[in-house]
């Protein structure tokens, strides 16, 4: 197992831990924590492939990750604002309690 495969395994482990958290935890904030873990795993993937690529002068990998970090930060802010607004209305952040759209 070469070094690139080691980095990819670490990033896929991070991704699957985040995925497990999103699918199992009931608190909306922890779902967001899981999403941030998945985004981090994808960024790690990008940088790993950039680092081991033969064309080292291309900074596309780094720029992709920079934009990804910025988008993830903006999405975390908006998501948490939504959670705060939902808490004010439902008095709970449990995802099972927010079922206003349930048929």
């Amino acid at each position: 197992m070469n070094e690139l495969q080691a980095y990819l395994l670490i990033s896929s482990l991070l991704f699957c831990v985040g995925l497990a958290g999103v699918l199992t935890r009931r608190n909306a904030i922890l779902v967001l924590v899981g999403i941030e873990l998945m985004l981090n795993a994808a960024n790690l993937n990008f940088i790993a492939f950039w680092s081991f690529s033969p064309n080292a002068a291309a900074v596309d990998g780094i720029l992709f990750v920079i934009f990804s970090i910025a988008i993830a930060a903006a999405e975390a802010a908006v998501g948490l604002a939504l959670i705060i607004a939902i808490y004010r209305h439902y008095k709970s952040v449990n995802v099972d309690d927010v079922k206003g759209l349930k048929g």
Partner: protein
Amino acid sequence: MDLTLFIIGVLTVASAIAAMSLRNLIHCVLALALSFLGVAVLFLRLGAEFVGFAQILVYIGAVAILIVFAILLTRSGGEEPKPFFNVQWWYGLAVSVAVFGCLSFAILGGGAVQPGAPMANTTSVKQIGTELMTHYVLPLEVMGVLLTAAMLGAVVIAWQKGERK
């Protein structure tokens, strides 16, 4: 795979598992910050210094703090009432184990993962800045608009109308 990479990888994944499985939410966020730090160290190890420090600044310095504030504002700071896992939690666990199985099969067994010369790059921040200003100026401006819109949207959504207790 050498020892430092193994130790950093184990630390990152272990703190990610702790972030998703602890009961107290504040402990979860602290473990998440540790996981972010582990990923930043991996970025530095791969030779992407700017991204590594940007990761520390943005994720640990902003996103983790933001999550802590959201926890405090929604009064979820203590332990969650039992049961805090979904009733069918093992479905989610089985799905993520299956996803990890597929990914690791693709990584280890495929044979298409042939790395080039490892870390032969000497990318400077000046190169990143030049690229941002010449070839990537449109995504940069769009990112500015997005961040402004996100900031305004977050303020509007969380705005407290009228009465306060």
